[in-house]
């Protein structure tokens, strides 16, 4: 392909002698949309960003021809001319990619002055125009806004405006929608596609999100562990994947394998008129004297069926995680909340708090912050036993921990589990850590497990494994789940009942499959559509 805009040949990247990208080849034609797909650690981001030498301490070799020049052999000075000029980058997290000390207009204007040689007055006008083209309402006003004054979607639009300021030939978008709520993702993608068509840019899209690739890209390149295992047009790869890894990725949509709970069983958890509010500082000098309050959950009624799963779906800020913390008795709330036949306040009053805690356990989202880095596996998983069964001798406690490690699929048989007991969390992958967190919760044999986004931080293939583990545990142990998630796919695979939350209120409820197939509320419809 001689007319290629960017032609990458035998790109290798290493960190301190450790190779992470093992010689990949790809090319992008002018105006083409190429998606680079892979799981975390596959080297997709490193490959793309090392083209512009944006990765610290990376040893890069190979060839990357852009308009006849090899990017990898340019001097730092020449490369600076290319960055943000011929090639622009959009990052995943717009909050950290924008400088919080300057207004958006300032930052866009800076690019215009630097790359297009405009005067400050022209640059400001140009910034307004760019912001308008990305669909931000009232661009004349927003141009003077600081990043924190914009919403997440607006920030990402401002980032795009900034990237477009230099009229690049190639736009590298590194997970441009991952940090955004589902309902915004579609809009941002549409915007990117529109602008790409208008400006005739090429787009290198780095993502792990397969539906997104199908919707946006022309061609796709699949990466696994630093190798490019397959590339081709989107239709080809999705219809006839040739490599085993691609097939595994495509088949990673979680499957529903849950037993129906008994229809007459009493609910494990029941809430009526549940209200949770936080004190927040009031603006101005009023805040000196009294605190305002923000209501995160407004009067929720819900029930978790025994042996079943209540899914709670909503976007960030909808109050779903607050609901989880209230269910765990970790937040003060108003209204009626009963877990396993007892309210938190009554348990506290009757000194039965510890007993109640044993019945409700939790698994959090981030497998890295949910395990203390300074405790061994035995200490982490065995902690519940030392609190709730202090009479148990140490060797029996160890036996139970080892048995549970086998049950959550961390080891093949309990004998091998003994080897793992003295290890520390840093040696485990994200999926393994999530299994550890599940084991920690299960050791006290709870009735209700609160799952707060249990798989959102995991890769798709690992996500599927963890979900099927949770399904198996529910069938074997008759567990009930309160499942908090933003992911429609997870609800579809796991939930019996579902409630949809928006801005602290429940907007729709019902049997999970009914709600997902025939959503009534427009917001639910939006969520379901965005996930399709």
């Amino acid at each position, binding site marked *: 392909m001689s007319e290629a805009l960017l032609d990458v040949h035998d790109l290798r990247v290493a960190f301190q002698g450790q190779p992470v990208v093992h010689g990949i080849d790809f090319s992008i034609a002018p105006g083409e949309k190429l998606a680079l797909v892979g799981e975390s650690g596959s080297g997709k981001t490193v490959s793309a960003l090392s083209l512009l030498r944006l990765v610290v301490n990376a040893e890069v070799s190979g060839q990357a021809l852009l308009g006849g020049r090899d990017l990898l052999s340019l001097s730092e000075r020449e490369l600076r001319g290319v960055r943000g000029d011929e090639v622009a980058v959009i990052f995943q997290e717009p909050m950290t990619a924008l400088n919080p000390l300057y207004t958006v207009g300032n930052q866009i204007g800076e690019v215009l002055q630097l790359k297009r040689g405009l005067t400050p007055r022209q640059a400001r006008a140009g910034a307004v125009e760019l912001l308008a083209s990305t669909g931000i309402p009232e661009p004349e006003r927003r141009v003077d806004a600081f990043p924190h004054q914009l919403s997440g979607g607006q920030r990402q639009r401002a980032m795009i405006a900034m990237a477009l300021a230099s009229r690049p030939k190639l736009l590298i978008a590194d997970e441009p929608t991952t940090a955004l709520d589902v309902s915004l993702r579609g809009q941002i993608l549409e915007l990117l596609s529109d602008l790409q068509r208008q400006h005739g840019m090429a787009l290198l899209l780095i993502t792990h999100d397969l539906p997104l690739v199908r919707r946006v890209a022309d061609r796709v390149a699949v990466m696994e562990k630093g190798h490019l295992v397959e590339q081709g047009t989107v239709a080809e790869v999705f219809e006839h994947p040739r490599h085993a890894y691609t097939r595994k990725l495509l088949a990673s949509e979680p499957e529903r394998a849950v037993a129906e709970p008994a229809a007459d069983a009493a609910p494990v958890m029941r809430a009526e008129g549940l209200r949770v509010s936080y004190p927040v500082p009031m603006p101005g000098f009023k805040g000196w004297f009294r605190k305002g309050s923000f209501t995160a959950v407004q009067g929720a009624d819900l029930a978790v069926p025994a042996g079943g799963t209540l899914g709670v779906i909503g976007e960030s800020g909808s109050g779903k995680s607050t609901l989880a913390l209230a269910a765990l008795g970790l937040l003060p709330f108003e209204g009626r909340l009963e877990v396993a036949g007892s309210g938190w306040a009554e348990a506290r009053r009757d000194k039965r708090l510890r007993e109640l805690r044993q019945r409700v356990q939790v698994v959090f989202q981030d497998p890295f912050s*949910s395990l203390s880095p300074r405790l061994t596996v035995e200490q982490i998983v065995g902690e519940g036993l030392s609190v709730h069964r202090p009479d148990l001798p140490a060797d029996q406690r160890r036996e139970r921990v080892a048995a549970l490690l086998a049950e959550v699929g961390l080891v093949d048989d309990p004998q091998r589990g003994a080897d793992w007991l003295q290890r520390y969390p840093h040696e485990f992958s994200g999926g393994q850590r999530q299994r550890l967190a599940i084991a920690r919760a299960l050791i006290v044999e709870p009735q209700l497990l609160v799952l707060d986004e249990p798989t959102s931080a995991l890769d798709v293939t690992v996500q599927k494994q963890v979900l099927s583990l949770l399904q198996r545990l529910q069938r074997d142990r008759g567990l009930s789940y309160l499942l908090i998630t933003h992911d429609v796919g997870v609800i579809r695979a796991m939930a019996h009942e579902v409630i949809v939350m928006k801005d602290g209120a429940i907007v729709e409820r019902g049997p999970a499959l009914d709600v997902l197939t025939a959503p009534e509320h427009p917001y639910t419809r939006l969520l379901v559509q965005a996930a399709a």
Partner: protein
Amino acid sequence: MATASLSPSRRAWLRFKRNRLGYWSLVLFCVLVVASLFAEVLSNDRPLVVRYEGQTYFPIVRDYPETVFGGDFETPADYLDPFIRKQITQGDNWALYAPNPYGSQTINYFAEKPNPSGPSRANWFGTDDRGRDLLAQLIYGFRVSVLFALALTAIGVVLGIVTGAIQGFFGGKTDLAFQRFIEIWGSMPELYLLIIFSAVFAPSVGLLLILLSLFGWMGLSDYVRAEFLRNRQLDYVRAARAMGLSNAQIIWRHILPNSLTPVVTFLPFRMSAAILALTSLDFLGLGVPPGTPSLGELLSQGKNSIDAWWISLSTFGVLVLTLLLLTFMGDALRDALDPRKQDV
């Protein structure tokens, strides 16, 4: 698959060991401190053992009158007196002197040259203006400085962790009240208070330790507070809470071990700051009572008799060496505990 897994602190220690400069600084510093703990054996005006007319004496632990060794007086024997020295070393008698036969306050009344005298065979590092051996004073002065610094650091660390933990863990109004208290307390003029107190009370090492400790915990407490504030809202702490652990268990098992990085990193730097503080106070005459061996007092002597270059030079050398060792250790520790360095 390796069966042994390294704990985070063990991995940090391995990283520390790989920094050769820091590691050997630690080794040398420990050797010096341990040696200084045995200062009485290394530098003493009394012999360790005396064999006199068929009997064995241990002057290092007991006082013997001069008459025991054939002297005229009932006063404790002065073993630097050439007469006594002759008595206990002639014939079958023998005496084992310390390598440096002077104590920290020993005045050699039998010196050949006027005080202060430069380095010689009798006094390897020379003497000060009162005729006391400089090497002996340096050894004892180093010991006082290091022990003082260790005590001050230990007290400061304990106070800093406790106050920081209370503020960070409970947050809210407790935190607010404590922070305002620290602001008021921190704006007290520390030096003037020290001057006033040293005028009111008889100066002593204990009093100094108390006064410096009163102000020494605040910096550390802020770091511990910040770590606690960060760690208490992490998921593993929430999970522990949901498990039903008490506040004390959560602090002790979960938050504290993960909040000690700044404490450990600052240890050597706090030590060197404590040594410097003691030295400067002694230099100003506000520090330890007269008669206590002290590097600061030696420095002020060196300033007063500028011609006696051996006083200021050797004291300066000891100080620089100590502070340098501590700084190297601190640098290595900081690298070893840097969360961005993962590899072993």
